[in-house]
């Protein structure tokens, strides 16, 4: 576990936090006697105390027996390390309003986005996260909670994805979704967005974990994607209470939830300093399976992935079917009818299926003229078999991969 930090330059890796000892963790905490409905307002109110994280929360529960009892106690904040300086003042204000009023306000804000409060006591609390330690005490969720019941795999990666990364993220998400796996990611630009989008397009469920409150979807450009995910039976999850004005979104905590929700985490593409590596570190810490997609050794965007593999922290993903097998699910690939392609298009597609290439690279190996190649590429693009992702390199799409090698 400690080895992760050697492989990751990014930020303070979670592994540097003191190991959770048996006395402060959640695992041996007995919550059986607590009534979820009775406790809920106090859990919500407590979770709003700035700087009070999952570890501190567990410590309070252990000391006072319940959140209700803790709320009434004068010594609530005693002995909690690393609280922000204005925590006592904030707590005093919350207490003046009263826990039920605070919780009602949060619930009202949530109702506007069809969301609900889920505490670690609730039966609806995602089961995979319920096995994690530490686990976020209070979550805010919208969408279909059944999405958490299915096996889940997280697909994460850099926001500055290359065409290769996007293409692979789509393929993996598509394959997983077809196999009935819930695809979990962070709704960010780049790899995250491609994974969510492909899962939804394949008719699968997808869960997005936001770094922002549910009523303020970040990034705003993915609002429409989030709607599609909900419509397809997926869900959105956030640890931040709605209506809260947050400064910098806390990506590190969000990434821990992503890892916690999934059985396995796949890092598709991550440069040396990438948030995706924090998710990878969390996956190792939470004892989730970690996979990484290898990339060209001269591609900066894949350096983090290649290092995870080299350091033997992550297993190599060699194909989407291979990934399914290694997490215990067989590929349920459907046979696809072979599209009718004319000879030049087939020749170009064949070369692109070998590896994505640019026009300059295709010219000598296809032996075609620039003009003919240009028109063949447009036709392949129009048929949805090839895409350039706005760059000069053309990638075969999922549909093309299913056709396999044409003629």
């Amino acid at each position: 576990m400690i080895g992760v930090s050697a492989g990751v330059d990014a930020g303070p890796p979670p592994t540097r936090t003191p190991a959770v000892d048996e006395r402060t963790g959640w695992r041996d905490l007995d919550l059986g006697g607590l009534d979820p409905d009775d406790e809920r307002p106090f859990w919500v109110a407590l979770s709003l105390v700035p700087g009070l994280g999952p570890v501190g929360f567990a410590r309070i529960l252990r000391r006072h027996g319940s959140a209700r009892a803790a709320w009434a106690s004068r010594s609530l904040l005693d002995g909690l390390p690393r609280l922000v300086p204005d925590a006592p003042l904030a707590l005093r204000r919350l207490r003046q309003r009263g826990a039920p009023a605070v919780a009602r306000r949060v619930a009202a804000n949530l109702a506007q986005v069809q969301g609900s409060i889920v505490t670690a006591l609730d039966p609806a609390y995602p089961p995979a996260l319920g096995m994690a330690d530490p686990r976020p005490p209070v979550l805010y969720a919208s969408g279909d909670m059944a999405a958490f019941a299915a096996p889940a795999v997280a697909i994460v990666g850099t926001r500055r994805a290359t065409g290769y990364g996007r293409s692979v993220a789509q393929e993996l998400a598509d394959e997983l979704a077809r196999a009935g796996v819930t695809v979990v990611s962070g709704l960010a630009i780049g790899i995250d967005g491609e994974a969510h989008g492909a899962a939804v397009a394949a008719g699968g469920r997808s869960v997005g974990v936001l770094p922002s409150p549910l009523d303020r979807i970040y990034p705003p450009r993915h609002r429409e994607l989030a709607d599609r995910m909900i419509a397809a039976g997926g869900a959105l999850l956030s640890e931040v209470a709605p209506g809260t004005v947050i400064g910098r979104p806390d990506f590190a905590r969000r990434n821990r939830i992503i890892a916690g929700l999934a059985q396995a985490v796949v890092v598709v593409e991550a440069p040396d300093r990438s948030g995706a590596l924090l998710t990878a570190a969390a996956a190792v810490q939470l004892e989730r399976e970690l996979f990484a997609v290898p990339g060209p050794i001269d591609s900066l965007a894949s350096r983090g992935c290649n290092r995870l593999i080299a350091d033997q922290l992550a297993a190599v993903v060699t194909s989407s079917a291979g990934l399914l097998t290694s997490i215990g699910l067989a590929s349920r690939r459907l046979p696809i009818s072979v599209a009718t392609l004319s000879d030049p298009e087939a020749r170009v597609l064949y070369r692109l299926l070998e590896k994505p290439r640019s026009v300059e690279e295709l010219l000598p190996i296809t032996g075609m003229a620039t003009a003919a190649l240009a028109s063949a590429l447009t036709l392949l693009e129009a048929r949805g078999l090839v895409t350039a992702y706005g760059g000069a390199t053309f990638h075969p799409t999922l549909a093309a991969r299913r056709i396999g090698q044409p003629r």
Partner: protein
Amino acid sequence: MLAQTLSASLLGVDGVPVRVEVDVAFGLPSLTIVGLAGSQVQEARERVRSALRNSGFELPARRITVNLAPADLPKDGTAYDVAIAVGILAASGQLPDDTHLAKVALLGELALDGSLRPVIGVMSLVAAAQAAGIVAVVVPAGDETEATCIAGIDVLPATRLGDVVAHLAGVRPLPAATPSAAPAWAPPVGVPDLADVIGQATGRRALEIAVAGRHNLAISGPPGVGKTLLARCAEGLLPPLEDHEASEVSRIYSAAGLLDRRRPLIRQRPFRAPHHTVSTQALVGGGPRVRPGEASLAHRGVLFLDEALHFRADALDALRQPLEAGSVTIARVEGALAMPARFSLLVAFNPCPCGWLGSSSRRCQCDEGQARRYAGRLSGPLRDRLDLWITAEEPRHANLDGAEPSSAVASRVRAAWHRQLARQGVANGELVAGPQAGAVELPALLETLLRRRGVKFHLSPRRLQRTAAVARTIADLAGDEGVRGEHIDEALHYRPEAAA
């Protein structure tokens, strides 16, 4: 006593005939010039005064009024000096025979010693005189080569005011200049050749299409891959100017004072590449004395904006009008004036501030918003008018051998160019620009194909129209009578990417 002489004034790039009326009356000695005369014209008083005295004539000690008609047209420049001086002589009885005055236009600036100095815009001024039915024009010696480019009018070069007067008096006629043979077009020298461009297969092809059909081309790509070199090769691909175009372009350069006086008729299509710090006025023309800007100087040729995203936003925006209308209109209190500006626009730029967005070999250092704001400097309406979009590739994948030289491409371009002219009189790119834009005719089947592709790639109707024109050019380059599906697909390959 009253006298009238003929001259011409420059308005933008066009000449306008001007009558110079001189009245010499009793009163306190004075010399007044009226008729919206600018400061350069006001200073003519001093030049005329000295030139008359030093040529052995006399400035009458009377009240002299000079009116430049039409009086509502603002006038500037020094071309009226000779006409004013001769008018004063005629009105004061120092020119015995004034029968010639109504038939000869007088152009020229006077030096204090009475000699004639060249003026700018001679070609347009002479053309205006010719159009007004004037049979002869006196021009300063040195300007006759330029003036004789206009047929149908006698050009009389003169060196001194005295010679002009002697001619008008019928004493010593000035010999008419004979038009020099129009120089044959020769390929421009010192321009980069496509043989020197490494790789860039797509770029070469797109440049060939753009030049052949007079389309507008956008080249995006990382720094140092050869975008500028590629764009500058366009100059060597341009076909020579047609005859009527040659005089049009030459007149613009004459009005800008940029003409080579010994070889005035321009045969080579212009290639203008203003620096990105250029002011809006210098780009599209204007100024207190309206001069043609880079857009007009690129008329019938290519306007190349390197690092296009670094041009001032208002300067880029000002290009919309010439791209649409083929001319620049400068609005003035006294009215608007138009200057021709029909050019192909070539722009090159990096996709983001660091330049490496979308590159496979280097990582972009810009954040998402930065890159989007950067690309956003090219406004939507301007993007819409760029027909072909390509991404220049880093040449590490390039073929180093067998690059086709410019001369081979230029001959294809010329053939395609003649095909377009023979069919429709204008280039394909000009078919779809402007308010009276016609559609490029496609067979019904191809029309359907284009529309279906348009839905697939989310293309606007304007973009589809431009795609059809590009496809037409591709067919012309291939020597095909009709457009085929593969031409349309190739044209669509050069569509702007959603990301770019």
